[in-house]
């Protein structure tokens, strides 16, 4: 992939000896290693995504500022996301988001993953957006959304609202929300929603179609 994984080692040094980061460094027990990841070249990324060079620059600067090592792990991800929702608890939803971004299931999100997902969400076609959303909801990646998964997602969204809402949140509000969702989406009433049902139902709904176009100009 062209990515260089350099291992920077810190630790005890004798005077006058200086080690430089090299490719095949063996980790010592006493030394701390930071994995540093560099993304592919700007041109390549521009080809792969729907962003222009300048947009990629802005995005990368912001990304690098928050994660100097070039990768985001789940905790940092949750912290960042929580800062946008000070009222409630955004960690559960951030967890699902992280899994959706981390398409390779490596436990960390690199800049490429980040950019790919953003490209789909902001500049992708309707079908791509809906597929991405379906993958977000399908927590165990089995191709079906069942009620438990949906309840988890909806509950995570409600958690972000926090305690002080009007009208006050009741314990079965998420459940009712999920029931309404399944009412709409589950066409053949088999208790699960497949990708096709999902896309079909969403395309029928005016509101959803409109709101998918909402964030086109975010960058």
């Amino acid at each position: 992939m062209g990515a260089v994984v350099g291992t920077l080692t810190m630790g005890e040094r004798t005077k006058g000896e200086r080690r430089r980061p090299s490719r095949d460094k063996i980790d010592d027990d006493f030394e701390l290693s930071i994995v540093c990841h560099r993304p592919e070249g700007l041109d390549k990324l521009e080809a792969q995504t729907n962003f222009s060079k300048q947009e990629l620059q802005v995005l990368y600067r912001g990304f690098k500022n928050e994660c100097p090592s070039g990768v985001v792990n789940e905790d940092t991800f949750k912290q960042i996301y929580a800062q946008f929702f000070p009222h409630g608890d955004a960690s559960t939803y951030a967890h699902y988001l992280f899994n959706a971004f981390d398409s390779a299931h490596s436990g960390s999100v690199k800049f490429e993953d980040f950019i790919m997902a953003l490209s789909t969400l902001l500049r992708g076609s309707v079908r791509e957006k809906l597929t991405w959303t379906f993958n977000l909801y399908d927590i165990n990646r089995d191709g079906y959304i069942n009620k438990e998964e949906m309840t988890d997602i909806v509950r995570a969204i409600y958690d972000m609202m926090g305690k002080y809402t009007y009208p006050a949140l009741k314990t079965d509000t998420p459940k009712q929300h999920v029931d309404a969702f399944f009412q709409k989406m589950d066409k053949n009433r088999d208790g699960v929603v497949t990708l096709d049902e999902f896309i079909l139902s969403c395309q029928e709904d005016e509101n959803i179609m409109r709101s998918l176009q909402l964030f086109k100009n975010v960058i």
Partner: protein
Amino acid sequence: MAAGVAAWLPFARAAAIGWMPVANCPMPIAPRDHRKRHDELIILNVSGRRFQTWRTTLDRFPDTLLGSSEKQFFYDEETKEYFFDRDPDSFRSILNFYRTGKLHYPRYECISAYDEELTFFGIIPEIIGDCCYEEYKDRKRENAERLQDDQDDNKDCKLPNMTYRETMWRAFENPHTSTMALVFYYVTGFFIAISVLTNVIETVPCGATPSQKDMPCGERYTIAFFCMDTACVLIFTVEYLMRLFAAPSRYQFMRSVMSIIDVVAIFPYYIGLVMTDNEDVSGAFVTLRVFRVFRIFKFSRHSQGLRILGYTLKSCASELGFLLFSLTMAIIIFATVMFYAEKGSSSTKFTSIPASFWYTIVTMTTLGYGDMVPKTIAGKIFGSICSLSGVLVIALPVPVIVSNFSRIYHQNQRADKRRAQKVQKARLARIRIAQTGSSCTGFLQSKRNDLLNELLELTGSEEEEQQLNKSMSLLESQHHHLLHCLEKTTAHEFVDEQLYEQNCLETTIQSYTSRSPSFSSQDGPMGTCCTRRGKMNSPLPNSSLPLQPSHQQGSLQELSALHIQCGDKVPHTNSRSSLNMKTDEVGLINCKGSQITTAIISIPTAPSDTTDGDGLHGPPQRRPPPPPTGPQAPSINTTASSNVIKVSAL
């Protein structure tokens, strides 16, 4: 919003697409970005040294000088840069704050100069990172104390217009202020010394008299000693009464340690005067004389070192307590062992375990008087173990106490550290409020502003609208839009704590008082959010209040209230719905030109109850309240803070 992650706002907004299929209502429109897309470099010229940074870097902290529009005042048109006539060295750390989000305090910098720079650029010092905060606070405290000392030196000059009482108090507290005070100070010191000496000499046997045995001086020269004692006590009493008179807070003075010592010092004398020469009580009287030795503690007023010693002992109390506790444990253990070891031998001094305590203490502290010695082999073995362990047990806590003492003695700042803990909590609270709290309230505040703006749009009042249009940064408006979308998705609104408590209260009250069937409130929010405000001209979905037919449930439901944000035409066309228990219908709210934000219906009480005719107070002050119509018209209360009318039947 935490400005450090402002760059991630696009990501957060993109992720909001995940909510869209779940939501049932249309989303609000996104704020438009009028500015040019690409980021630009800004040149900051600080006294000749040019710093360059991206505009978005500075925009991270919009409540500082560089992040807000305040920097426009420093813009130089000709050179197209921002010029600041400040210290370029300090500016380095300030600019790094924008770049990294962390503020550091450079150690070579003077504390007051740094503070001034921070104040100029609008950055609160509490944001200084933990790595540098201790240093900063220490330096600041030193500086403050130095200034304080300077002030104190000036303070001792006599202020005009002090009352006699205040003068006296000052004379007592600071003896070097006036000659009289100094004289008084030395006289009392002298008499304390005399009093202590007489107490001591009283007991010395002096000179043989023709009578058989040596008498202590106290019994030989009774009159003389009594006169001496009386004189001292008189002086002390007078001094105490004068201090009591001069004290600014008498109750506090009486509770202070020094005054208690004074009282204890002079009390036995008076008791002795009162008591008769009764045989029974004279024993008690003698014990009371022991308290006269407390007069020596009066010296602590005269000696600063004594006060510090007492203070440090008090603060080492936990270590002393530990020492005592461990000693007690060891004493009990060894006393028991010695007792049972020596039980066998004849004519032993170890008659009981408490009797063995004395031996154990003497051995463990390595005194070794020798009045009690073990005779058996086992006793000797255990005795030696006892003395060895005694050394250890005492040696362990004592260095801790000693180091404590020296630390405190050098620092002399224990009280400041306790104050610092409170400051730390206050500091964290301030940061939290400044960063998160303001974003919470910022969002709620802007919501109210938006509603108010729309109201004013209806009335077409230009000036007020302009007044209320606070220029919010684009980032903020985008963030608020994001929160708005979340509200729409879940069909619940953010409110602040008081409103929430209020609603809860009303819910519980209403659910008690109402017995009639009412509408389920569950579907209310979801259904009615779609009746969110539209333009002024669009007809209101009067007939589509979905609460109508299908919620005839006999059980008791919670309260819901109708929110109507009425436009100007309310008084004319308003016909309030009457919530009729029998038909369980919702009448139509016909407010032309008004905007329904959320509609929740409240529970009607039994129809015979008359409603609490509060009437409508009107959301903004200018509107006259429309009169309630119908006998069962629900009363309308306004909560002025949210600018919506709540219709609730009581």
